[in-house]
Structures are given as C-alpha cells and as structure tokens.
C-alpha cells in the first residue's frame, strides 16, 4: 500500500467500499472469502429487469481475525442496489450464520457490516423470505452461544429488514456499533413521507433524518450499544471493547427490554423531535447534539443511564 494512505489518512468507514472495510478491519492477510465473486453466484432475478448484476450479489462473507481473534464476517456493499437483500445475498448471510450455529469449532463471533436499505424490491417475496431467514438465523446462532455484532455506518444505513436485523432484531444482534453517519430504522425516510405526508416527515430534510434515525440518536436512546468515529480503526476498537461484555440471551433480558421500551414510550411518547427527548433526559444543550465532536458526544452518551444497559 502506498505511503500516502498508511501515514496520512485514516480510512473513513462511510467512504469505504465493503471490500475496503473488510480488508482494513481484519488483520492483514487473514481473510478467507466464502463464495467469492469468482464463483459468480449472482442474482437470478435482475436480468429480468435489465439491471446489472454483481459477482458477489453485493455481500461478502468469510472468516478472518481481528487482533488475532477469529471471527466470521459479512459485509454488505451499500452502493450496489442500495445494499438490499436479494435471494442470493440473503442466502450467503444465512449460510454464514448457520455455519456458526452448527459447528462448535467455527468462530464464536460473527461481525455484520450492515449497509442496507432493506429488501430488494425487484426480488420481492424471495427478498422478504431472505430477511426472515436472516432474523431467525441470527437468533439461532445466538442461542447456540454465538456473539453477533452489528456495525452500522455506511451510506445506505440499516433500514427495513436490515433495520429489523439491526433496529428491532438489533435486539437480534448481541451488540450494535454505530457512527454518526449511520442510520437505522425499519421504515426509510421516503417511505414515511410517502405514507404520512411531508408535514409529518420531510425526507429531504437531512438534519431531521439524522436527528430521528442517525447514529447519535440511536446511541442516546439506547438503540445502539456503542458509538464509533467514522473510521475503520475506531469501529474495530469499539467492537473489540464490546466483545467481553455480551448480555445473556434469555427470557430475563427480553422481559427487561420490554419493560424498558414501555417506559421509554411513557416518558417520551409525546415528544415530537429528539431535542425534546434529550431535554427530558436532562442533557445540557439538547439542540447541539448534532454539532458535538465525537469525543464530547461519547462522554455524554456514556453518562446516560438510558443509553447503557443490556436490555436494548
């Protein structure tokens, strides 16, 4: 690698392609790809629409090490068809998770570099099926003792089914790391606007989109466990720091989560925008969260009881 990169620039997570994230997250040379692009497992559906295919159907799966620690890994390419779940895309991810579930000598940690707008509409039902299978596969892997860590910080965010994988089922994942650029939700901004009107939600109001679904908001509300800077190094460090504090995956945790979510709705259900929530949480300068540096924000987040608990 040329000097100009290693010495003078850190790798932005947001700007990176999925392959660049994988190459720079894992220890150099440690990555083995499963069903790589040379296998040409492409979508059987896109040709019908005269749409270009990707040799890896927009997701990289495989295994490698992070600071010597064995992990399984999947990375979605958010720039290919919005990182959406298609039949093959979903199958690769499900296969990876089932491998972790079924083989005790497989790595016990799965890292999901999620960057998705949800289901690939062109693939319709098989896309939806794929997402359901992923949700189940994540839960089954966790029941088998596997740790699943989601990392969200790319262009597509983590929406729809992916949002379920991360958003709701983020309860699905053992831990979520998110950066400011990351966004998660079930319904995307455009969907909300289309269904509820622009007065309710203007999807082109970018500060609004980030105030409601962005990484800082998710972190403060407790929808993400940790906050990373927009760099591959930071994501790696934060993920590693989470590995030893994984919550129990049991009924008790789930019941606590239900209780917490009920409380959250009671406390903040009348709020129209997040600064009102921050104010109610007692955060000083609730309107300035978006302007805070990553460091200052992290300090505030770590001090919030609301944001730090296992029942996410």
């Amino acid at each position, binding site marked *: *690698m040329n000097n100009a990169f290693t010495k003078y620039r850190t790798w932005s997570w947001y700007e990176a*392609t999925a*392959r660049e994230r994988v*190459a720079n997250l894992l220890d*150099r*040379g440690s990555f083995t790809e499963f069903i*790589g*692009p*040379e296998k040409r497992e492409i979508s059987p559906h896109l*040709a019908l629409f*005269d*749409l*270009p*295919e*990707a*040799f*890896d159907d*927009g997701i990289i799966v495989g295994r490698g090490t992070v600071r010597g620690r064995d992990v399984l890994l999947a990375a979605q*390419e958010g*720039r*290919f068809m919005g990182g959406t779940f298609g039949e093959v895309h979903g199958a690769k991810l499900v296969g990876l998770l089932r491998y972790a579930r079924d083989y005790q000598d497989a790595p016990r940690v799965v890292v999901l570099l999620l960057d998705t707008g949800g289901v690939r509409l062109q693939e319709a039902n098989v896309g939806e099926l794929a997402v359901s299978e992923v949700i189940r596969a994540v839960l089954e892997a966790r029941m088998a003792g596997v740790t699943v860590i989601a990392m969200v910080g790319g262009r597509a965010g983590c929406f729809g089914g992916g949002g379920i994988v991360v958003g709701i089922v983020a309860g699905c994942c053992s831990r979520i790391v998110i950066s400011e650029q990351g966004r998660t939700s079930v319904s995307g901004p455009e969907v909300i606007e289309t269904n509820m009107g622009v007065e309710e939600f203007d999807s082109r109001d970018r500060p609004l989109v980030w105030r409601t679904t962005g990484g800082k908001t998710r972190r403060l509300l407790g929808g993400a466990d940790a906050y990373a800077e927009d760099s591959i190094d930071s994501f790696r460090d934060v993920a590693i720091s989470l590995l030893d504090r994984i919550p129990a995956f049991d009924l008790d945790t789930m019941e606590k989560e239900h209780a917490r979510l009920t409380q959250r709705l009671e406390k903040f259900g009348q709020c129209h925008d997040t600064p009102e929530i921050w104010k109610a949480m007692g955060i000083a300068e609730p309107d300035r969260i978006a302007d805070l540096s990553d460091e200052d924000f992290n300090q505030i987040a770590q001090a919030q009881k609301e944001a730090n608990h296992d029942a996410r």
Partner: protein
Amino acid sequence: MEILEIHQKAARRAPGDKSHGITGVVASGDLEVLLERLLDGTECEVNVKTSVEGFGDVWRAVVNDFIERHSPGGLRISINDGGARPETVSLRLAQGVRLMEADR
C-alpha cells in the same frame, strides 16, 4: 443489456501470482472488474456486460488501449458495468492489474 467479448494477445503476461482480484462497485457511474489468472501465455479476454447500449466501439477502444498499455496477458477479465464513463473504465482496469501484482 449489451454483452461484448474481446479477445486479444498482450505483449507480456501480467506480473504477479495472485489468482484473482476484484475492484470497483456496480453502482451508477461505476463498474466492477473481476480479474482471473486463467489463460495461457499472453492471451487476454475481456467480457463486458453493460446496461448502457450502443457504445460498443468506445468499449473496444478503451479495452484495446488498456491491453496495449498494461499487457494483462493470461488474464480473463469480466466486467459488470453500471454506466461508467470511459476514463472510469480505464482507471478500474488499471487498478485491477495493479491488484493482481501484489499479494495483499
């Protein structure tokens, strides 16, 4: 979709011993280039799949120029194009050959 196949002999074999490599993303204005060290001698094959029809002769000019400049002998190169401009295609092809050189 337009599909193009170009076969040509290069001046030399592409340096390096990496068996395959990939660069680029199938996104608007971009393309992915998969390179595989599969062919004998200095044979070179470039297969293009593009959703933008009618630019066959520009593709041929770009590919021929690439083969002349970078001598990718022994490589089978496969492209999924998302509507990239010619200079982006040239760049990705040049990046691909570089990728195949080093075992990174």
